[in-house]
């Protein structure tokens, strides 16, 4: 029974991919790949998703640490807040970002006064992607940092004379490596596929804010055939990255 369901699951996952890949108009692949707009959308997507992952790591890992290790009032509230973007419809996330960082937004108003306008910029793309993708990183890292094995091993290091910062570097980070890697990859993958929050908060302009998912959508309106090619390129690139990272990070742990 389990085997049957597992097989069905593989079919369920593979069929849409097959649908896309079997329909690739091969004669137009070369021209699409050479298309400057496609190249710039792909470059923009890779760049913004990378920056979004870095931003999520810089802000999200410390929060994951605090959630895992520090006791304080309102912790479950903060944790819910951190996970909220995961369940929020991306368009709502984009709207919320607009109302916060937009020209008339809560913070945006002040920023505009000092000459910083965020909407319709590449920065806005990075912010939208980080906002939506960060929960994946926080969840994975927090779970790892809560591991009692890691905490106990840190205690052993402390009894040998290791200061908190040495414990973090020598014990906590190496022991959480796999979870950290998984969190970063999940976060990056989510950022790469981001559409709703980006289009709402950052808009759509070639080379500035038109990421691959938006390019696919635009292409679908005008030339569905080219949307298939763009979608397949995005899929192949993400699959390759996931595959290579999985090999390097996850298998090394075993």
């Amino acid at each position, binding site marked *: *029974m389990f*085997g*049957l369901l*597992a*097989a*069905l699951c*593989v*079919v369920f996952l*593979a*069929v849409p991919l*097959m*649908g896309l890949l*079997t*329909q690739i108009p091969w004669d137009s692949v070369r021209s699409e790949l050479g298309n400057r707009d496609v190249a710039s959308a792909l470059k923009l997507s890779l760049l913004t998703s990378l920056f979004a992952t870095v931003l999520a790591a810089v802000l999200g890992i410390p929060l994951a640490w605090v959630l895992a290790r520090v006791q304080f009032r309102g912790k479950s509230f903060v944790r819910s807040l951190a996970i909220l973007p995961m369940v929020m419809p991306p368009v709502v996330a984009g709207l919320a970002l*607009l*109302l916060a960082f*937009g*020209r*008339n937004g809560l913070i945006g108003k002040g920023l505009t006064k000092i000459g910083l306008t965020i*909407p*319709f910029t590449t920065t806005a793309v990075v912010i939208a992607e980080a906002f939506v993708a960060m929960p994946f990183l926080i969840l994975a890292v927090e779970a790892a940092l809560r591991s009692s094995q890691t905490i106990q091993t840190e205690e052993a290091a402390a009894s040998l004379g290791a200061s908190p910062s040495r414990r973090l570097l020598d014990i906590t980070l190496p022991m959480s490596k796999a979870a950290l890697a998984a969190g970063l990859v999940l976060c990056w993958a989510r950022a790469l596929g981001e559409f709703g929050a980006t*289009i709402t908060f*950052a*808009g*759509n*302009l*070639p080379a500035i*804010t*038109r990421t691959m998912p*938006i390019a696919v*959508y*635009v*292409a*679908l*309106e*005008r030339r*569905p055939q080219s949307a298939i090619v763009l979608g397949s390129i995005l899929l192949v690139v993400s699959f390759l990255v996931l595959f290579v990272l999985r090999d390097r990070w996850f298998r090394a742990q075993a």
Partner: protein
Amino acid sequence: MPLSKWLISPPMRMKIAAVFSLALLIGVSCGTDQKNPVEEETPDSQLAAPAGSLSIFAAVSLTEAFEEIGKAYEKKNPGAKVSFNFAGSSSLASQLEQGAKADIFASADEVTMQSLNEKGLISDRPRVFAKNTMQILVAKGNPKNIKTVTDLARKDLVVVLADPAVPAGRYAQEVLNKASVKVTPKSLELDVRAVVAKIDLGEADAGIVYTTDIKSSSKVAGVKIPLEHNVQARYPIAVLKTSLDIKGSEKFVGYLLSVNGQAILKKHGFDTT
């Protein structure tokens, strides 16, 4: 049937599962090879909408007008029901090409309708039922003092347009070309209502939208574009070949073209034929 017949050993079950999934894979991938899925479509009585219910795919700029017309039509024809799917004309056309079932398609431009017609999805000749013009959309009270299309080139303005992939975007481009104005938009929104939203939220100062869109928000105002720079958007409507209720569909189109239908369109800012 004895129960034991269903008791299959686990390895056997695995094999069955594998064969079954393979068959599914092949079956589905063959299905996608069909050149024209619509022609092979057979009416599925279980999935079809109940008799008297019409599914109408319409351009997003028609939202308010069509909703009112739908209500009036239902009132006039007890038992009849209409449901709408509003979106950018091009994405509706893509959905229809990929096999979405609907009775009627109302497009914001003739190009999109024409492409559907060429693919043989339309049962009769499309008919133009309304016309629309373009206006410059600004925040209420026009705080940036935008008077002409030329003003849109000002460096201090944040201008958003619809993407040329959708009709409103193409019309906006045509307006700019006619006025020989070069505008650097901050964003090319995926449908015309997103342009309205950006100005409504104060994130953009100006855009070019349909005249009829201006009424969709209370925080915006329109600036008229002179006739020589303006374009006329013609809205064609057609009954689709997939319709299960051609008669009912034609009745709705007839109502749209009647005095009553046209009056409602006019009320919402459309020019009528």
